[in-house]
């Protein structure tokens, strides 16, 4: 018998951001209605308590001022419960001192993830890829970025993209390759060269992980140098 595949329409650049209502770590939201008048970086991550996602959330949180300056509200999502999101951000706060001060959508049934085409079955049928939707103050999708599960995003590129969109709108111009709003040096340190150690998948291994000589923030979040 011929296999019947479900085809999910995916939002594209220039489309109105699909509407949804959801619970977040900062209360219920009606999207994009509640965010009108602000730019939104709506991004998905594969799962809570995973190491690459933790580095991304910490990086987003540390750049909050940059996003605030640009009238940008961050909004995260993964196919996890609100309790899981809360436990995770409390864990990050406890282990690193960094407060995650933006909302995360609880999408246990994956409804919002499917609505936004954040599930790519060839990559994973249960975890969302690293999608970024940049939505303008009128609720229109202006840019989309997809990264696979294994690669953390570059937050400075997301800020650069917002600067480019806002500049294009303000001056009626386009921006060339490697454009930046002002001369700058993107500083990378030794820390940026480290990689993530795949997290343990059993309780026994999790207990052992902290004694294995890696640089660990918690049992699921360890880095090592390849040098």
């Amino acid at each position, binding site marked *: 018998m011929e296999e019947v595949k479900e085809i999910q329409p995916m939002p594209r650049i220039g489309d109105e951001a699909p509407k949804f*209502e*959801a*619970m977040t770590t*900062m*209360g*219920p*939201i*009606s999207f994009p*209605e*509640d*965010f009108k*008048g*602000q730019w939104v970086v709506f991004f998905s991550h594969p799962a809570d308590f995973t190491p690459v996602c933790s580095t991304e959330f910490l990086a987003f949180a540390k750049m909050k001022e940059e996003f605030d300056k640009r009238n940008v*509200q961050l909004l995260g999502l993964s196919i996890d419960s*609100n309790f899981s999101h809360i436990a995770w951000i409390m864990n990050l706060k406890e282990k690193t001192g960094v407060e995650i001060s933006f*909302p995360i959508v609880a999408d246990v049934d994956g409804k919002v993830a499917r609505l936004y085409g954040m599930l790519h079955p060839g990559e994973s049928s249960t975890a969302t890829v690293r999608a970024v939707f940049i939505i303008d103050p009128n609720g229109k999708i202006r840019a989309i970025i997809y990264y696979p599960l294994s690669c953390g995003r570059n937050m400075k590129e997301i800020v650069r993209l917002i600067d480019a969109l806002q500049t294009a709108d303000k001056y009626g111009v386009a921006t060339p390759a490697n454009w930046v709003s002002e001369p700058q040096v993107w500083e990378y340190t030794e820390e940026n060269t480290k990689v993530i150690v795949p997290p343990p998948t059993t309780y026994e291994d999790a207990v052992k992980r902290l004694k294995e000589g890696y640089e660990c923030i918690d049992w699921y979040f360890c880095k090592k140098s390849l040098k």
Partner: protein
Amino acid sequence: MSQGCISPDGKPTERALELLKLLLEKKKLSDLEIAEILKRPLFQVRSSLRELEKMGFIEKIEGFYGITEKGRRLL
């Protein structure tokens, strides 16, 4: 869906009380003004306003929010 202004035991949350007290004091405010005064994200203020308006604790007149008699009784 879970609510942000009324806790599971039926009592108004701190967020709801903060907003109602502000409207009692200032009479009429826009969503932007409320967000600025309370130093809360705009989306969260809008969500609370929608919920409180639906429950009849506040009303919206020409883009400005004010507390209702039912809202005053809650404080």
